[in-house]
């Protein structure tokens, strides 16, 4: 019957059932990094708004964004941005039908982790 088990169906990710693997962990981190970027995005928009408002208000927001906490959020945001970008690239490669073998997928997983850290250092050094 159509109404068997109605309303008692499991929601999508069964995190407690599967053994943690590089694939699942890097995928979960893509989701977390993408959504956590909201914090950095709010700060940048606030900074833009302050720059448009005037020097006095800008000083307040600039003080926040250049504080230790601001530096921490901005650095974490750059890391999240690069990680999420590389994760998105892996998603596009998978969507195209490539890199679906376990070894290839694992290689891309490590590539995302190492690549995002390297690109974050490069970004901080270069800027």
């Amino acid at each position, binding site marked *: *019957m*159509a*109404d068997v088990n109605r309303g008692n169906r499991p*929601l*999508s*990710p069964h995190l407690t059932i599967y053994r943690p693997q590089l694939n699942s962990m890097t995928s979960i981190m893509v*989701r977390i990094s*993408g*959504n956590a*970027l*909201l914090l950095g*995005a*709010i700060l*940048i*928009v606030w*900074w*833009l*708004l302050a*720059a*448009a*408002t*005037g*020097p006095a208000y*800008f*000083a307040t927001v*600039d003080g926040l*964004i*250049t504080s230790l906490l601001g530096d921490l959020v*901005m650095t974490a945001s*750059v890391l999240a*941005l*690069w990680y999420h*970008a590389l994760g*998105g*690239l892996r*998603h*596009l490669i998978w*969507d195209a039908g490539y890199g679906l073998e376990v070894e290839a997928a694992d290689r891309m997983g490590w590539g995302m982790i190492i690549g995002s850290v390297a690109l974050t250092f490069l*970004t901080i050094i*270069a*800027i």
Partner: protein
Amino acid sequence: MAFLTDRKRVDGLGSAKTGTEHHWSMTITSVALLILTPMFLFAIGPLLGEPHADVVAGLSRPFPALVTALMLIVGFHHFRLGVQTLIEDYIRGMTRKIAIIAMTIISYGLAATGLVALAQIAL
């Protein structure tokens, strides 16, 4: 005896038939963001922490203004679709609806705030 047919009971409970559109929109915006992200970091990164006059002068130049505007539009559209999937995976019922509405308002609200600020600086 049941007066509802099985068909009637399940009608409207399946896919909303808009998943393909959502996925394709994410594909397009993700490719766009792969191009935009490095440009945005190099356009905006050097301005962070600079004095007010320098930031205003920097954002008034065409390239940083263009990259920032595109990042706000494409980035927040991509974020809205992504956060919607997050909400749909973990939250049910009325809370789900409220969360999706709230995040949609926040996404477009932030994008518009950034664009208006940018327009006032750059124009």
